């Protein structure tokens, strides 16, 4: 058995490679977050639709997505969808899977944020004859965003930490890259340690950023003057 030996030279050699793979991880997280926020909002608004059929259907879709593992959803999109003529690259598949999965969770965050807006705000909007779209866009969402920030941020960080699951469909993200480097050089310590440190650094940075965003966000919400 080899004793513990940290090889600095090897670490500096693989660092740029891991860093370039980190770009893939960050890209998947960024696009996945945008898609998740859009889907979360769509789910949340449909859950408030006046049609009971739509409300119930969306409820079950959200429950289904939340109750099945992300990896199953990733495999389904990557291996099953081509049978229906829909083939996507690993990155696109990953963005869709992460977006849908976390969109389902975010829809609950958005729903409670919207529910938190006082009844009087809705009534004033109606008395002023504002359309539903204007009521959401100008009155409700600008006030609901601040309370949504912490939970939304936590889910995005969680999503970031789930990106290694995309290595299962051959996406060359950080973990997959570290594994390849390790197997080619018979050294796993440095690449995997680097990946762990990267995740730690990015997660802490993101948590700090979210905290700052929440702190600086106007308490009442925002609007254009």
């Amino acid at each position, binding site marked *: 058995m080899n004793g513990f030996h940290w090889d600095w030279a090897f670490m500096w050699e693989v660092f740029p490679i891991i860093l370039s793979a980190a770009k893939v991880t960050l890209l998947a997280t960024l696009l996945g977050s945008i898609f998740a926020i859009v889907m979360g909002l769509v789910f949340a608004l449909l859950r408030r639709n006046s049609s009971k059929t739509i409300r119930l259907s969306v409820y079950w879709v959200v429950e289904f997505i939340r109750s099945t593992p992300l990896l199953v959803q990733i495999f389904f999109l990557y291996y099953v969808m081509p049978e229906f003529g829909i083939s996507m690259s690993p990155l696109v598949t990953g963005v869709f899977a992460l977006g849908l999965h976390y969109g389902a969770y975010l829809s609950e965050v958005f729903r409670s944020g919207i529910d938190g807006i006082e009844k009087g705000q809705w009534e004033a909007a109606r008395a002023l004859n504002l359309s539903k779209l204007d009521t959401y866009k100008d009155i409700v969402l600008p*006030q609901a965003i601040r309370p949504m920030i912490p939970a939304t941020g936590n889910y995005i960080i969680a999503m970031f930490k789930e990106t290694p699951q995309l290595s299962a469909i051959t996406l060359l993200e950080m973990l997959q890259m570290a594994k390849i480097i390790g197997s080619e050089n018979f050294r796993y310590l440095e690449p995997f340690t680097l990946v762990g440190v990267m995740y730690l650094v990015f997660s802490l940075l993101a948590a700090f950023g979210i905290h700052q965003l929440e702190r600086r966000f106007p308490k*009442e919400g925002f609007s254009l003057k």
Partner: protein
Amino acid sequence: MSTPIIEFKNVKKCFGETVIFSDFNFKVEENEIVSIIGPSGSGKSTLLRILMTLEGIDGGYINIAGESLWHMLWQGQYVPANNKHLHKMRNHLGMVFQHFNLFPHMTVKRNITEAPMRVKGISREEAEASAERLLQLVGLADKADSYPNDLSGGQKQRVGIARALAMKPSILLLDEITSALDPELVDEVLDVIRNLVKEESFTMLLVTHEMYFAREISDRVCFFDKGAIVEEGKPEAIFTQPQEERTKAFLNAYLGQ
């Protein structure tokens, strides 16, 4: 006699098992100022909320300016109104709320210009000019750029009045607009209404606990109890010579006579 601007015909309204109106009939003429007084839970606010389409009805008809509020003609028959019809009907009405319901994330000016710009498609310049006039009218010309949370209750309510007026409603509904205010702030709000009716003619329906104000400003006072009008008439008659026992008891309790 002209068509009343507001007409309730056999209106029924329930909240679950609780019946608010079982067979309610009520008319308001154009440019008439009607005060509604009565004990809590008698259906006063519900009446205004139904008119503002914040609450639906469970039976009967309501006409606004000769057109049905909660129903529309479809293939020769009256059917429940769709959103488009309600949107059109709401243009007749404006409402000032007990708890102001100002938009806290918008400046005072934006609170007033938002709906005219979005709903009526008025240009920003025109909406802002109109907002400035209205703020002058309610004595808050210097608060245009403040946020609601920086205002006192009385100032908030005056913005609430300006906001409702910006939509140029023909019927103004005032729902206990001074009930949430400290006593010393009540008059500044009531003065705005006093000036308003001096300068322009309005159809106004106000639910109020300010008996002196109701007496001073109204053409007619209605005493409500348990979802029905127990007594109505000229303010002088209601306040000095009420005929019904329930009216007498209420006024005695209220005015400490």
